[in-house]
C-alpha cells in the first residue's frame, strides 16, 4: 500500500489519532504484520464489492464497519482523557498507564479493521463526531456532564463502552462465516473483555460496587430509556441449546449450595450479545 495514501487515509478516517502523537509509527509498523493483511485477504472475494443495500442480511463488511465505529468511540474517549492538561488521573500511575494501554489497543484495532476494509476494495464508514457528555453537541441534557473532570464518571462511561464492545463483537460473530475472520474477531473480542474487566476493577478499587464481570449485584450506572441499552438482557437466567431446549441449570450437579447459583452465578458465567440495532443505539448515545 502506498505510504502517502495510507497516511492520508489514517488522518482522514481517524482524526482523534492526532490527539495522541506517539502511536502513528506503531500503527504503521502494525500494517506490515500478519493480522490486517491476512484479515483483508480472508474477506470473501466479491462480497466486498456488493453495496450493503443489495443484501437483505448483514455482510461481513457491515460487521467490520460496526466494529470500527465502536473502536473509534472508545479510542476517542481514552485519547481525550490522556490529552487533558489539567490534573485528571489519580496519583497512582497505574490508572493512567492502564488507560494508555487500552487506548493503544483500540488504535491497533482501528488500523486492523480499516486496513481489512480498504484492502478488500471497500471504503471504511465515515467517523461520526463524538460527545461523551451525551448532549449531542449541546442539543440535549447531558448524561455525563463531568466525564472529563470527574475520573469516576469517566470510568463509568469507559465501563459502558467496554462492556458494550464485548457484547457488540459477540453479537456479530455468528454472522461471520469465514474461519479466519471468526478467529480474528474472537481475538479482538477477548481483548475488549480484558479491558472491560480492568475498567471494572479500577472502579472497584475506587469504591464502586462492581465486579470484573457483569453481575446482578453491580450497582447500576445506567439511566432508564437512555444508557440502559448497554446491559439489556445481560443478566439472562437461561441459556438455550436450541430454541426448545433450555439448559436445566437447576438440575445440574454444579456442586455449590445456595440459590444464588441460578440467580447470580449463571448470569455472571455467560456474557450476552448485543444485536446490531442495540449496538447502533449505544453508538448514538455519544455520537452526533
Amino acid at each position, binding site marked *: 500500500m502506498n505510504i502517502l495514501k495510507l497516511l492520508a487515509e489514517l488522518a482522514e478516517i481517524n482524526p482523534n489519532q492526532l490527539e495522541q502523537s506517539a502511536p502513528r509509527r506503531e500503527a504503521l509498523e*502494525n500494517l506490515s*504484520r500478519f*493480522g*490486517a493483511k491476512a484479515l483483508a485477504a480472508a474477506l470473501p472475494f466479491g462480497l466486498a464489492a456488493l453495496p450493503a443495500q443489495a443484501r437483505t*442480511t*448483514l455482510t461481513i463488511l457491515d460487521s467490520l464497519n460496526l466494529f470500527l465505529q465502536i473502536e473509534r468511540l472508545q479510542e476517542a474517549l481514552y485519547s481525550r482523557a490522556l490529552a487533558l492538561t489539567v490534573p485528571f488521573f489519580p496519583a497512582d500511575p*497505574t490508572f493512567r*498507564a*492502564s488507560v494508555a494501554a487500552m487506548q493503544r*489497543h*483500540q488504535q*491497533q*484495532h482501528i*488500523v*486492523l479493521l480499516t486496513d481489512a476494509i480498504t484492502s478488500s476494495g471497500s471504503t471504511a464508514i465515515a467517523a461520526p463526531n463524538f460527545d461523551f457528555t451525551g448532549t449531542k453537541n449541546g442539543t440535549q441534557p447531558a448524561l455525563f456532564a463531568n466525564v472529563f473532570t470527574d475520573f469516576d464518571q469517566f470510568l463509568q462511561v469507559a465501563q459502558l463502552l467496554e462492556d458494550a464492545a464485548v457484547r457488540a*463483537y*459477540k453479537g456479530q*460473530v*455468528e*454472522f461471520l462465516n469465514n*474461519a479466519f475472520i*471468526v*478467529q480474528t474477531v*474472537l*481475538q*479482538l*473480542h*477477548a*481483548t*475488549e*473483555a*480484558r*479491558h*472491560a*474487566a*480492568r475498567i471494572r*476493577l479500577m472502579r472497584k478499587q475506587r469504591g464502586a460496587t462492581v465486579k*470484573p464481570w457483569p453481575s446482578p449485584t453491580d450497582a447500576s450506572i445506567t439511566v432508564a430509556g437512555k444508557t440502559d441499552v448497554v446491559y439489556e438482557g445481560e443478566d439472562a437466567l437461561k*441459556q*438455550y*441449546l*436450541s*430454541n*426448545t*431446549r433450555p*439448559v*436445566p*441449570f437447576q438440575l*445440574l450437579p*454444579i456442586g*455449590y449450595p445456595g440459590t444464588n*447459583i441460578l440467580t447470580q*452465578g*449463571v448470569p*455472571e*458465567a*455467560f*456474557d*450476552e*450479545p448485543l444485536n446490531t440495532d442495540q449496538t447502533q443505539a449505544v453508538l448514538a448515545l455519544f455520537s452526533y
Partner: protein
Amino acid sequence: MSKNLQNSSEEAENATPLQVPIKRRSFFMYAGATAAATTLLLSGCNDDDDEPTNPAAGTVSLGSGDVGVLNYAYALEQLEAAFYAQVISNAGFNTAFPDAAERAALTAIAKHEAIHRDFFKAAIPATSAIPALTPKWGNLNFGNRTQVLDTAKTFEDLGVAAYNGAGALIQDPTYLLLAGKIVSVEARHAAFIRDLINNGTFADSTAVDANGLDKAMTVAQVLAAAQPFITETIDGANVGK
C-alpha cells in the same frame, strides 16, 4: 440433503442438541434464509458421528466435528472447575488469601467454571461426552497464594486462547455464540487474576499481541499445555474435523 432435513426434524423429538433444527432468528440471518444454505449448514451440523472409538487404556478421545470442539471445551472447563474447587476448599484458603474480597472473587470464579463445566455436560449428547477427567496437580501448593494465582493465570489465559483458536472450528452458530458468551467471561477472569498478581498487567504483551489481538492457540498447542495437569491422555486429533 432432503434426507438430512428429514432426519433432523425427526430427531427434534429426541432433543439431541446438535441435530435439532436451528430455528433461531440469528441462524436464518446467518444462513441467508435460503433453502440451499440452510440445507448445507444442517448437513454440516450433522457431521458429528464421532463417538470416541475404543480408545487405548487411559486415553480419552475428544471426537470429531462440533462434538469434538464441545468435548475439548468440556475438558478444559473440567480442569478449571476442579482447580478452583480445590483452591476454595483447601484448608489453608483463608490463610493464603486473607483478603475476604479476594476469597469472594475466587469463589465466584469457581462457581462460573462449575457452571461452564456442567453446561457442556448438558450440551453434549451423553453417548459422545468424555468422562470426568482426573486432574493432576503435581507439587502445586494450594496454600500458597503465589502458586495458586500463577496457576490460575495459566489456566485462564490458556482457556481464552483455546476458545479463540477453536471458535472457527464450530459449525453450529448456536454453539459458536455460546462459546463467545463463555470466552469473554474467561478473559475477564484472566484480566482479574493478572491484576491480582501484578496490578495493571490485565492485557500486557504476554496476553495481547502488537495488533491488539488476544492470543489464539490451536487444539494441539492447548492440549500440550494442559496435558501435564490431566491424568488421562487426551486425544484431540479430530476436533472440529
